[in-house]
C-alpha cells in the first residue's frame, strides 16, 4: 500500500517535473521521398536539414536533438505508416520532410490530431493554406501556387499568348495550373500526365501538333529530367520557349540534363547567389560538405531546421506547452537564407519571388543566376478562407 503511494507520488512528481523544467531533448521525425525518381528532392531537403544541424552542433534550441529519418518511397500509405510510428512509438516533437503534396495531404490529419507541429520544408498544398489551415501546420517554403504565379506573370508580361502547360495529375499539379493561370491570361492548353511518368513521347507529339510559342512545365524530380531530355531530343527546343518554376530548373535537373537547359527562365523564392551572410555560409558549407551546389529544396530543409531551433529556444525547451510553442514558431526568430520573410495568418510565407535564368557562371558551371524580382511581399491566394483556430 505504502509502496503504491510512493510510486504514485514519484510518478506524479516526475510528470510535473517534465512539464515544469522542459524536455531534455528534441526529437524530429523526418519522412521524405528518398528513393525513386523523386528522390533527388528528398535527399536535398535532408542534406539541407542535416547541414543546419551541423551548424547548430547537433542541437535544436540548445537541447540535444535527434532526427529520425524514413523513406516514404513517394507512396502515401508508406508515409502514413512511418509517420504513425514516429508519432506513437518515437513520440517526436516535430515532423518535417515531405516533398509531395498528395503525401502531405494524406499524412496531415494524423499529425494534427496528435497535436504535433508539422514544419513543411516543401509541400504547400492550397488546402492547408485555405479552409483546412491548421495551427499545427507551418510551411517554411511557399504555397504551391506561388512559384507558378510568378512564372505566369513573367510569361504574360513577355507577351506569350499561346502556351501549353504540362503537369502531373496530383494536388501539386492542380495548384501549379491554377497558380500559373491566375496571372497568365492567354490561350492555355493543359496536359495532365501520370505522377511519376517517365516517357513523354505521346505528350511531345501533341505539343508538336498544337504549335504553342511557349511551354510551361511543372514536373518535379526525375519526371522533369526526362521531359527536358526528350523535349530536346524531339527537336522542339528551337521553336518553343521553355518556362518552369524553380522546381523543374534547379541543380538536380541541371546536373542531369546539362547544357540544353541554358537560357531557361524560372522562378524561385531563393537562389544560391542571394547576397546575404547566412546564405553565403549555407551555400559554401553545403558545397564543401556534399560536393554540389544546393537547390532550393536544400535551402528549405536548412530553413526548417533553423525555424525549429529558434522556436525551441524561445520556449526554453518546454515543448509540451503547445500554445507557447505555436507562438514561438510564429515569432520565427531566425535569419532565413532567402533573406527576410513574414508569416501570413495561415502560417505560409509572405515573401519576394525572383526570376532566375540558367547560364554559365564564372567557373563555367551551368547554373542559375538571379535576374530580378517578379513579386515583392507576395501572399498566397487562399489565405482569405483560412479561419485559424
Amino acid at each position, binding site marked *: 500500500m505504502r509502496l503504491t503511494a510512493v510510486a504514485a507520488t514519484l510518478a506524479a512528481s516526475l510528470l510535473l517535473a517534465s512539464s515544469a523544467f522542459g524536455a531534455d531533448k528534441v526529437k524530429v521525425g523526418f519522412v521524405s521521398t*528518398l*528513393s*525513386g*525518381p523523386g*528522390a*533527388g528532392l528528398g*535527399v536535398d531537403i535532408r542534406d539541407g536539414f542535416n547541414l543546419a544541424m551541423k551548424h547548430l552542433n547537433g542541437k535544436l534550441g540548445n537541447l540535444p536533438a535527434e532526427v529520425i529519418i524514413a*523513406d516514404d518511397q513517394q507512396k502515401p500509405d508508406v508515409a502514413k505508416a512511418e509517420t504513425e510510428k514516429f508519432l506513437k512509438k518515437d513520440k517526436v516533437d516535430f515532423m518535417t520532410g515531405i516533398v509531395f503534396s498528395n503525401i502531405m495531404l494524406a499524412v496531415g490529419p494524423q499529425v494534427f490530431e496528435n497535436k504535433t507541429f508539422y514544419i513543411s520544408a516543401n509541400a504547400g498544398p492550397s488546402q492547408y493554406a485555405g479552409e483546412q489551415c491548421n495551427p499545427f501546420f507551418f510551411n517554411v517554403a511557399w504555397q504551391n501556387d506561388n512559384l507558378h504565379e510568378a512564372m505566369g506573370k513573367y510569361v504574360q508580361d513577355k507577351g506569350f499568348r499561346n502556351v501549353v502547360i504540362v503537369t502531373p*495529375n496530383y494536388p501539386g499539379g492542380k495548384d501549379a495550373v491554377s497558380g500559373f493561370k491566375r496571372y497568365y491570361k492567354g490561350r492555355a*492548353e*493543359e*496536359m*495532365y*500526365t*501520370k505522377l511519376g511518368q*517517365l*516517357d513523354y*513521347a*505521346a*505528350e511531345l*507529339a*501533341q505539343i*508538336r*501538333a498544337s504549335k504553342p510559342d511557349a511551354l510551361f512545365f511543372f514536373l518535379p524530380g*526525375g519526371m522533369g*529530367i*526526362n521531359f527536358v*531530355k*526528350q523535349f*530536346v*531530343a*524531339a*527537336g522542339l527546343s528551337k521553336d518553343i520557349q521553355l518556362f518552369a518554376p524553380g522546381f523543374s530548373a534547379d541543380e538536380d535537373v541541371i546536373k*542531369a540534363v546539362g547544357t540544353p537547359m541554358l537560357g531557361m527562365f524560372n522562378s524561385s523564392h531563393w537562389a544560391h547567389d542571394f547576397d546575404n551572410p547566412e546564405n553565403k555560409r549555407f551555400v559554401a558549407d553545403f558545397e564543401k560538405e556534399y560536393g554540389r551546389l544546393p537547390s532550393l529544396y536544400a535551402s528549405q530543409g536548412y530553413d526548417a531546421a533553423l525555424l525549429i531551433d529558434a522556436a525551441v529556444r524561445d520556449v526554453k525547451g518546454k515543448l509540451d506547452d503547445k500554445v507557447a510553442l505555436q507562438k514561438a514558431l510564429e515569432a520565427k526568430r531566425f535569419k532565413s537564407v532567402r533573406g527576410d520573410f513574414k508569416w501570413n495568418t495561415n502560417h505560409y510565407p509572405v515573401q519576394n519571388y525572383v526570376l532566375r535564368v540558367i547560364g554559365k557562371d564564372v567557373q563555367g558551371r551551368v547554373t542559375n543566376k538571379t535576374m530580378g524580382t517578379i513579386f515583392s511581399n507576395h501572399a498566397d491566394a487562399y489565405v482569405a478562407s483560412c479561419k485559424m483556430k
Partner: protein
Amino acid sequence: MTQLFLEQALNGLQFGLMLFLLAAGLTLVFGIMDMINLAHGSLYMVGAYLAAAAAAASGSFVIGVLAAVAGTMAVGALLELAVLRRLYTRDHLSQVLATFALILIANEAVRMVWGDQPVMLNAPEALAGPVEIAGFSYPAFRLLIIAVGVLVALALYVAVTKTRVGMWVRAGASNREMTEALGINVKRLFTIVFAVGAGLCALAGAMLGPLLAVQVGMGESILILAFVVIVIGGIGSIRGALVGSLLVGVVDTLGRALLPWLLRSFLPGEVAAHLGPALAAILIYVLMAAILFWKPSGLFPARG
C-alpha cells in the same frame, strides 16, 4: 495532323517492340516450362543497371548494352540452374511465391550496390537530337530503338521457325512430355531459353534506360504490361507476343494522344484534360478484357 498521327504510330511501335523483348522471354518460359516467373522484370532491371555501370566505366553506350546482355544472360542461366529448376514441378502458387521473393531480393541487392537514387544512363551524344525527313522530325534514339527491336524480332522469328533449337522450343511449348519422349534434352533447352529471355530483358532495359530511369522497382511496372501482352497474344506463342506487344504499344500511345483530343470535341476543355489520360490509362486493360471475351486463350494460343 499527319505528323501527329505518324509520330504517335512510331512511338507506339517503339514502345511495342520494347515490350516484345520482355514478353518474348516471359511467354516462352511460361509456355514451355509452365512456369510463372514474376522475377522476369527484375532481370530487366538488372540489365539496365549493368548497362549503366558498363557504359559509365567504358564511356561507350554500345559496350554498355553488350555487357548488359552478356551479364544478364549469365545471371539468368545461374538463376535457372540454382533456383528455378527446382520450381518446375511445383504448383503455380509456389512459383509465384518464390519468384516474388526473388523480386524483393533483387531490389534490395540493387539498392545495396547502386543505392536508392536512379542511375544515369545517357544515349550516345550523336543520337541525342532529332532526325528530320522532309519536315517530319523524330528523336534519333527512338528510331534506333525501333531498328533494334525490328532486327531482334526478325532474328527471333528466324531462330524459332527455321532452326533446330527453335523447333525443339516450339515442340516443347506445344507438348512437353512428347518432346522429352523424343529424346531431346529439355533441361538444357530450358536453361538456354531462360538465358536468352534474360538477354532480351537486358536489351530492353539498356535501350529504355536513357528514355526512362534506371531505378529500383523499374521492373514491376513493366512486368504487368508484359503479362497483359502474353495474355492477349496467347501463352507460349512468339507470334502472339509480337502481335500483342504491338497492339498494346499502339493502343496505349495513340490512346494517350487521341483520347483527350476526341473528348475535347464534345466536353469542356478542363474535363477533357483530366478525363482523357485517365481513360487512356485503362484502355489496354479494356482491350485485354475484350480479347479474352472473344478469344479466351489469346490471339495465337501455342497449345491446341
